[in-house]
């Protein structure tokens, strides 16, 4: 299959679908369109730009690689944090508490005298692990539900659509609180919680692009040749639907990292003394006295977290433009 086959950028061929039937059906269709539009637009992505030309889209650019470099550094640091030559993040360091940044402690020490640099390095572990796991979970569960619903249509589609609708009816942080409130706050539970948040948006995207592809000739051809449903879904639809989903991975991860940070900030993320997370570090130094006298305790994690989320958003948005996902969604 060539790249051209995979790309359905052509809105006249498939984007509009067949001429909408009159009455209820077309209205339903429009409503779905709006709902998805609402989702796409409410995600924290600046919208596609009408003034931007196609040539720009096809180039990733220097700043993209800068963002990727930062993400790679973060991933490396997260993976090998215990082996890196940094101080023990849970033990009191050499200096006193609330020491300003120095040659010994690059980011200073916090209220308990722990090394902020080392804690920031270790904090990357939970943030990225939760973010990565959550988006993979969302893609596997939401993606398969969305493809199956979009392919078989009918009752199943309605049921899955209803389930997504219900999941989306909770503001995400509230749903996360509902789950973490009742369970032990282990790494797995927190990751699963945020993964569940990702199911419905990813599922809607998968469903929408499946609807587009299911009407195309190669699917009809496969069916005529006698392919079974399973084969059509796995061999024909999946490779096409994975592209828009994959292009949005980094953007989804940015949302997941922020969600974990918010939970940690509220004290509802992974529990335990050695579970260090950026959100927790920020709230630790956010008391008025600490903020006044030892600003570095919060500001370093704030800056690192901002740069990471910015890189995820920026690289993710570039990839989204590169693959022209917006046209695929309808």
């Amino acid at each position: 299959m060539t790249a051209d086959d995979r790309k359905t950028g052509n809105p006249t061929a498939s984007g509009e679908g067949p001429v909408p039937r009159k009455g209820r059906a077309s209205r339903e269709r429009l409503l779905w369109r709006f709902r998805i539009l609402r989702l796409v637009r409410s995600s924290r992505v600046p919208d596609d730009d009408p003034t931007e030309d196609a040539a720009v889209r096809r180039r990733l650019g220097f700043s993209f690689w800068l963002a990727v470099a930062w993400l790679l550094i973060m991933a490396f640091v997260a993976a090998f944090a215990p082996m890196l030559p940094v101080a023990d993040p849970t033990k009191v360091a050499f200096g006193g508490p609330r020491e300003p940044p120095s040659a010994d402690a690059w980011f200073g020490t916090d209220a308990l005298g722990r090394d902020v640099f080392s804690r920031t390095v270790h904090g990357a572990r939970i943030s990225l692990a939760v973010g990565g796991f959550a988006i993979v979970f969302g893609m596997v569960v939401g993606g398969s539900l969305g493809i199956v619903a979009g392919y078989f249509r009918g009752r199943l589609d309605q049921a899955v659509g209803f389930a997504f609708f219900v999941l989306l009816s909770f503001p995400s942080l509230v749903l996360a609180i509902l789950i973490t409130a009742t369970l032990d706050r282990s790494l797995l539970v927190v990751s699963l919680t945020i993964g569940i948040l990702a199911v419905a948006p990813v599922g809607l995207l998968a469903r929408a692009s499946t609807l587009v592809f299911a009407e195309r000739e190669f699917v009809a051809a496969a069916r005529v040749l006698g392919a079974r449903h399973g084969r059509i879904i796995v061999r024909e639809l999946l490779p096409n639907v994975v592209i828009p989903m994959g292009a949005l991975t980094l953007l989804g991860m940015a949302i997941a990292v922020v969600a974990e940070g918010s939970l940690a900030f509220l004290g509802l993320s992974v529990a335990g003394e050695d579970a260090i997370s950026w959100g927790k570090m920020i709230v630790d130094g956010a008391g008025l006295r600490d903020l006044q006298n030892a600003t570095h305790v919060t500001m370093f994690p704030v800056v690192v977290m901002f740069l990471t989320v910015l890189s995820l958003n920026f690289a993710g948005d570039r990839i989204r433009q590169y693959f022209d996902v917006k046209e695929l969604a309808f």
Partner: protein
Amino acid sequence: MARFVVRRVVLLVAVLFAVTFLGFSAMNLLGDPLVNVVGVLAELDCEGIEAGLVEDTTVDAASRDCDTVAAAKAQYHLDQPVPVRYVLWVGDLATGDFGTSFQNDQPVSQVIREKLPETLILLVMAQIVSLGVAIPWGVIAAYRANRAFDRGSTVASFGLLSVPNFALGVVLLYLLALRWQVFPSAYEGDNLGGLVFSMVLPAVTLGLPLAASYQRLLRTDLITTLQEDFVHMARAKGLPPLRIMFRHALRPSMFSVITVFGVSTGALIGGSLVVEQIFGIPGIGREIVTAVVRDDFPVVLAIVMLVACTFVVLNFVVDLLYSWLDPRVRAR
């Protein structure tokens, strides 16, 4: 049109039931509410004691532990299966009874009534801030699209969209309340003026990222609108640019912003949990976090339900609004 509305209302009711049932069973099945009411007594094998198989270790005969447990079970309907409890609970909700807090036996409805106004004021102010910033910002950016200001604002809005709420809140608190002391650092709820003034920073924290996303949408739509024939016509008539912008072009360009309005309110509610925590606002968000930490099951459940139902109804209204805004949805 009538049939359309009826269908939407049926869907609304179904979603409300599903949301409440999901929330209720999650709270009941994942945790044991009995533990939260009576503590360690929940582990007592009362059936064994009644049958005489296990020795009753209660010292004081007047208040047997098993009686306490039984009373708690009866009070909170904990001796019934979950579906029955759900029906009872929904029945109570319908009569305005949200249950009583495990912590201090206060009616939950009273807790909500006390905390809700602060959160509502915060949300309204945040929306005002975001629209107040986004409309002029978007208009200027679209008016001179791809010039220096527009390019700069693209970068700025991208940056704003990447700051987590809590990080922005902490930075604003540090700069504007502690460093330059423009705004109070502590919440002052004694009079309305002080309340509104101390809500400015929280509202800005919530509203700025939203303003950035509104600005992107408005700019995109405005650029498209400004290329339409009727705008050229207005310009040819010699109308002043400001009048063209605000009387002719702005209104048809607001569609995307309104589209996102419903969803963004949900995001704001989530954000308000965090922001209330930073700025010490005694609202719904702070209450739910405290309740979660204390395992105060009825309060958590009631607030989650309140928020989710508000969100569902709001999205329902936005769904209906489309049919007024876009004739294609209405057309037969």
